[in-house]
């Protein structure tokens, strides 16, 4: 059972890592002016909900499988994701708004956020891997 949980978390974590990398690449494309703000934001906004769900699922999974430490580790970021999604003003096009992304250093803060998430997911990845390998009923 334990191993199933961690295998699933591992896969989910991989997806989140890819997503974080995708965010970073797209944002840096915008920074370097390879794409315009409009297309950048519509690309990124598409993936905001999958990210929220992906992370929420792992967090909940950890809660129900009673891995308290991992759950608490994941909780702040999952909460932040949801908070960010809910707090989008009604007139904006999503978390990433093309009309504001160049203002008030938003691009930089989005970039920083994506970097932090990438680091976090990498950490989680190795943690899940370790837990998986140390599982008594390991499949490997």
């Amino acid at each position, binding site marked *: 059972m334990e191993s199933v949980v961690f295998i699933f978390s591992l896969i989910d974590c991989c997806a989140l890592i890819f997503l974080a990398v995708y965010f970073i690449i797209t944002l840096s494309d*915008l920074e370097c002016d390879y794409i315009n703000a409009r297309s950048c934001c519509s690309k990124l906004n598409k993936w905001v909900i999958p990210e929220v769900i992906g992370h929420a699922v792992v967090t909940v999974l950890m809660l129900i499988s009673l891995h308290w430490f991992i759950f608490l580790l994941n909780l702040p970021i999952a909460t932040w994701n949801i908070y960010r999604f809910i707090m989008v003003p009604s*007139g904006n*096009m999503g978390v990433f708004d*093309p*009309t504001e992304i160049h*203002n*008030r250093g938003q691009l930089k803060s989005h970039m920083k956020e994506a970097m932090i998430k990438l680091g976090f997911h990498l950490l989680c990845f190795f943690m899940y891997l370790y837990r998986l390998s140390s599982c008594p009923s390991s499949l490997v």
Partner: protein
Amino acid sequence: HPTPPPPCRSAALPGSATCTQRACAGRAAPVVPVRRGPAPGAAEPSGTEPGPGAAMAQPAGPAAACPVQNQMMHSSDAQGYNPAVPGSYSHPKVPPHQPSGQYNYSGSQNVSQFNSYQGPGQTLNRPPVAPLSGSPVQQTGPVPQVPPPALQNSAAISSAGSFPPGAGPPMLSNWQYSQSAVSHPAGTPPSHLAPGTGTGSAQPSPSLSGNTNPPGSYQYAASPGGPSLHNSFMKPGSAPPPVTQPLTPLHPPPRPPLGPPPVGVTLFVDFGHYNFCTSSIHLKYLSSLLLATPHPSPAPPNLKMNRNVGYSYPALPPGYQNTSPPGAPGMQASALQYPDGSKHFHQPPLGTNHLTASMGSLSLQQEGLRPVNLLQERNILPTTILQAPVPNLHEDIQKLNCNPELFRCTLTNIPQTQALLNKAKLPLGLLLHPFKDLSQLPVVTSSTIVRCRSCRTYINPFVSFLDQRRWKCNLCYRVNDVPEEFMYNPVTRVYGEPHKRPEVQNATIEFMAPSEYMLRPPQPPVYLFVFDVSHNAIETGYLNTVCKTLLDNLDLLPGNTRTKIGFITFDSTIHFYSLQEGLSQPQMLIVSDIEDVFIPMPENLLVNLNENKELIQDLLRTLPQMFTKSLETQSALGPALQAAFKLMSPTGGRISVFQTQLPSVGMGALKSREEPNQRATAKDIHLTPSTDFYKKLALDCSGQQVAVDLFLLSGQYSDLASLGCISRYSAGSVYYYQSYHHKHNPVQVEKLQKELKRYLTRKIGFEAVMRIRCTKGLSIHTFHGNFFVRSTDLLSLPNVNPDAGYAVQMSVEESLTDMQVVSFQSALLYTSSKGERRIRVHTMCLPVVTTLSDVYAGADVQAITGLLANMAVDRSVSATLSDARDALVNAVIDSLSAYRSSVLSIQQPGLMAPSSLRLFPLYVLALLKQKAFQTGTNARLDERIFTMCQVKNQPLVYLMLMTHPSLYRVDNLTDEGALNINDRTIPQPPILQLSVEKLSRDGAYLMDAGSVMFLWIGKNCGQSFISQVLGVPNYGSIPQNMTHLPELETAESIRTIAFVSWLREQRPFFPILYIIKDDSPLKSSFLQNMIEDRTESALSYYEFLLHIQQQVNK
């Protein structure tokens, strides 16, 4: 400059296909003629459902009835995009708004004729035959290197022939001038051994560029040969004195000499030389030159001399420039300090100059920094309009600097590091008015536009020339080559003077862009008008006014033969108007499917204005009557906008929307969010848009180069916060006429008329982009204004108009060590209404400082207030209004406490502020009391949001007037100190403080609040004023709604009217004058502007100061 994506020209046909499809589905409404009567275009005149539906099912709708249409489609197509068609975008004619200063030339053509170069500066310390230009150099003797007169004449003639007549004669006269110089070889100084100096010996400020050079400028181009300079320098005083003598009679100095008469005439030669070299050139040359002749004397303070001459605008005639003999050794010494001239060369000249400049304007600095105890100085407001502070640069750089009305920085002394900026607690940013109507604007036509190769900066007056063939970018410091064509100066018609080109002499300049600057042929001017014709709209009667104004100004719409125009009206359905040529009257097509809007016919909805003028006039005359019986109350604004966008997207252009109520059906329908009883609390008011529909649509519009201007004329809440997005992100403008009604509110009618007239006739730029560049180390982090930020520094402006202002906030990313000055450049690339692609470039140069006191000394309080207002609007939208208000107050507290703790050495009691910021608390208080940020019940939500839109979109001058109006007493105007403009005497009464205390019952006061003026008549106002200016017998008989001053024959009336109209002429819009007395309903708006007084919900100025003092001294 990325240019707009190519339009999809094939969109027309799919459009018709859709139409057909829909018609088959039976969803399209019938074709209805505009007038009830026989409709030639429509198959079935009656409004029955199936018949016209079938008619519409024909390909291209009514075209079936009119076979000519297809041809018309093609021909109009051709006219739009085929450059071969006359009247399309090759317009050699000069637009009327650039009266002079047209530097039209085709560089390569003329350069080839001047390949025997006559570069005076170049000959300085090089052998005369220096093969600098690739062309064969033929300088072989003392013969002046002028092309044979015949050749030059032909050149002049050919250029005069191929260019506007205005440019021709000056060229010729200039040529004659240089000929005369040639014919007086005696005019060249004896020491000038180098060839080619004859022509260069005296270049007057050319008549061609009368606008660019100040009248007193005197370009002295005496160019000594290398050896002679050596001689003169090594043996100061040895050169024969009569150098200037033959020259000055030819060109008498236009202003009296300011300094003592020449002392060391030798020096004159050098100074004369400096005149046309940038100081960098001369320093470099000097340094290399003087290595051999060391001179130990230290640099005296009057070093500024060398800067003086650097930009060929010598303040003094050359003969008088050597005011102080010690200047010469000083200069040599300064040159010696930089023996490796080419290495540090961009810095030293500016550095030394800066030093001198600081010394020179020491008093100015001191003035800005003088501590003022705000609590003690009661009369702090200057009695004249506050001028922008002058940057602490040397006067010759400053003279070239951009006009502060166009380009202004909050801190005229740029802090060197972000840490210093943070310490100062003042915002750093720029306020721009880039497309302002200018009376004089140099326009350059050239096949290559010289730009930095790495950062793409346009060459500007603040670049440094390393030598004649290389220049160093002042933004990224890359060394660039001077292209061959740039060596020829079209103004003086001299080769080898790149530093004298108009591009290097003007901080504001316009280039005619060659084809590299367009991705598609320049678009034609396209205007689409979208009118709300629901019952509510008809009730207000606005359509009459608008149609009439439009009819009157149809010929004044900026445009050319390609101008296109179209009309859409909407209530719960959308009505299109076919203005096909050949129709006897316009034809209305109704689309009732508002869920999925389509364009009922591919062509003839946007038609050529000139070819179809009668039909258009016909439509404008009938339009107001057509809907008088309409009972439709719904408003489908969203679908109408979508339709307008679809119609415009192939070309781009301007959509003007007139809306009178909350959109209620279809996409973009809105709900009322205003709760009148919650107005008082600053919380929970809806400043954010409720839907992203308008924003998305605006971005679509922006992508297709369409701008939407919104005219909101409504009595009830219309959610401007949501609607305004359509204009905000498509670079349009918003106009708001609260409670517009043709009968009940005649003042608004007049306002609409005047503003609409200005709106229709003002200049317009299409498919524009603006980029703001700044010196490496600075970066822009927030933009304010109506546009879409397409990439980090590129603003997409589908339309640009002369009444729009922009602001940016900046930060210091890398510290600006080793930099004495920084530069900012805004470049606006647009298509003019004549179909020319043009680039308007403004460049501003500011000094960098390292101490906090200097930062404060250079603070520009108006610009700071303007930028803070923009930031506060953002804050109130992203957070809450009270947050924004707190932030404004904190800005004052923080900056004053930073000043107190870091700059003031002696801690004095009271509230101390540097003199430069002495008006800061007053202006911030004024902002807090302004409609956008005030608390209290009297601001309606739409009005508040409209004021916020204005804060974002108004140029600084008008924003300041709106925030802090000017108050004048006008019942005792005298001619003392009056201005005299065009034989009109304009009295200049002093500006009074905005306090009731300043009002007296026996006076009359004029308050100028930018877009509105109040004339308050005191109860005991002098009888003479009432009868001789207002034209009524006594106070009691002043009518309630008086908005005009009668033109009477009395001196008082003439003075008052002259003053009021002078104020009005200074702005592009028309401020309405309300004449109010004590019982007028508008008295409260007048008193509201009394910023220094206490109101029920806001502090008085003195209380505000006390509050700040308390916080500062904490």
